[in-house]
């Protein structure tokens, strides 16, 4: 089927000459969309895994409350937390860590401002354990009114909804690219049928079946699909790797860290803007040229058979 011999000079058609380039561009867009979707999927998994195993206990204090009283309250809360089944550990965040968390909103000197800051206790849950949040909330509020539990649920829901939106967009783009690719092949095939109508008539009169004629077109579409698909996929892979490298360099500059130290780490802690794909995800992208060639071949065959069936 990939043989160079053809009864129809399809490769000389102007429309067909551009087909590999058009397919390459389409596959490039599709590969970027699919690659982005896979990155977003990983991101969602990491965010979900990172945040569903944690709680944050926020203890608001009256500014006039003394250090000793605050310490007593916190100790009692930590005791209750430690005694709660399913809680693996607690960490009281110090002022420096609280300042870092508030930095995006209050700037670098948040702790120097004369505003009351709550105490924050990071709680780590045992994997797979569901705690009775309402009961815990009531117990903590009884120790110190106003104490709240933040399980990041609302934030996770918003973030996941956003990521799902991105995935939907990627799927939509892939669908549009697929439709455009199919229509392009239909157009090129029909043009070829029209240009070579005379030769096709001769081949028919000699005894060729419609399938024989279709084989000529589908072989060409298969070749162009493989060439264009490989070109587009390689270009997309280079683009993804390039963007990943740029992001690393940007993060390194922002954090004054050498890029080499960021390998294997999330670029922005808690955000995980890592565009690298896993080996199986690269394998999925590597299948794109084959899938493109297959789709191109089937489309060309379907177009020829359908068009020829209308002749008589």
């Amino acid at each position, binding site marked *: 089927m990939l043989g160079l*011999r053809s*009864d129809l*000079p399809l490769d*000389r058609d102007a429309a067909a000459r551009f087909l590999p380039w058009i397919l390459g561009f389409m596959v490039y867009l599709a590969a970027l969309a699919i690659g982005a979707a896979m990155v977003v999927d990983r991101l969602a998994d990491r965010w979900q895994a990172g945040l569903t195993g944690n709680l944050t206990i926020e203890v608001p204090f009256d500014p006039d409350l003394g250090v000793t009283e605050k310490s007593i309250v916190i100790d009692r809360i930590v005791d209750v937390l430690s005694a709660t089944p399913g809680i693996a550990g607690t960490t009281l965040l110090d002022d420096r860590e609280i300042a870092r968390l508030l930095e995006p909103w209050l700037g670098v000197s948040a702790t120097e401002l004369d505003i009351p800051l709550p105490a924050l206790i990071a709680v780590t849950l045992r994997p797979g354990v569901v705690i009775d949040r309402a009961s815990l909330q009531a117990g903590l509020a009884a120790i110190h009114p106003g104490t709240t539990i933040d399980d990041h649920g609302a934030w996770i829901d918003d973030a996941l909804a956003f990521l799902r939106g991105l995935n939907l967009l990627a799927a939509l783009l892939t669908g549009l690219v697929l439709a455009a690719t199919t229509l392009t092949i239909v157009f090129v095939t029909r043009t070829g049928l029209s240009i070579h109508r005379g*030769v096709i008539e*001769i*081949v*028919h*009169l*000699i*005894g*060729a*079946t*419609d399938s*024989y004629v279709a084989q000529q077109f589908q072989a060409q579409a298969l070749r162009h699909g493989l060439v264009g698909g490989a070109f587009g996929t390689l270009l997309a892979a280079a683009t993804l790797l390039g963007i990943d490298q740029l992001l690393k360099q940007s993060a390194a500059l922002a954090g004054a860290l050498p890029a080499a130290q960021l390998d294997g780490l999330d670029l922005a802690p808690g955000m995980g803007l890592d565009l690298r794909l896993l080996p199986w995800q690269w394998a999925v992208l590597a299948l794109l040229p084959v899938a493109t060639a297959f789709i191109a071949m089937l489309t060309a065959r379907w177009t020829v058979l359908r068009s020829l*069936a209308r*002749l*008589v």
Partner: protein
Amino acid sequence: MGWLVVLFDQVSVQYGAGPQILRDISFTLAPGSFHFLVGRSGAGKSSLLKLMYLGLRPSSGTVSLFGRDVASLSRRDFPAIRRRVGVVFQDFRLIPHLSALDNVALPLRVAGVREADIRRHCGELLSWVGLADHLGALPETLSGGQQQRVAIARAVIARPNLLLADEPTGNVDDVIGLRLMYLFEELNKLGTTVVVATHNDSLVSRFTHRQLRLEQNSLRVFDPAQPGRSRPAAAASPSSPGPA
């Protein structure tokens, strides 16, 4: 073969609202027969041939090929019938971008013959028609006579049951013309039914084959073995080949 190769019964052909090209044509061709189809230019010879290679459907009447009514054939049945019919077109209809050898090979390729066999058979046949040195030549580089010989080789390469030749000697000299006619006779001896359409009276007169004469859109059969007896076309039996 118990069936007739060709059967026409009250066949008429009319293109659109134009005049009738063929009117109430009836004749049969038995297996192994050899006929000339004669008539002046525009008499309808090419249309009659088209009906026999499924290039045209009759406006009325019945056309049967190899015992099958053409009207009952679906598009899927056409290739199998057409592979049994070799056609030498008046305008050759060679495929311009294919070499002489590849043009001749086409009927074998569509029939799925092995490539090694194709090369051997086509080379031998092209040598036989005097084109051994032009196997790789494109049609545009060949003379009219050479193109015609390629067209003939393509028509006979698959040893068809029915050979239809439309003015096959129109572009070659008398020597080559006779050589080609002998090729048709050789095929005829092997069982191929042959119809040669021509307006070359001198060529026709050199052979004793029956003649299908198209005159005023109607067909009459003339048998040179019984001169003076011309009758409306009916069943045509095998005729003895050979130059007169």
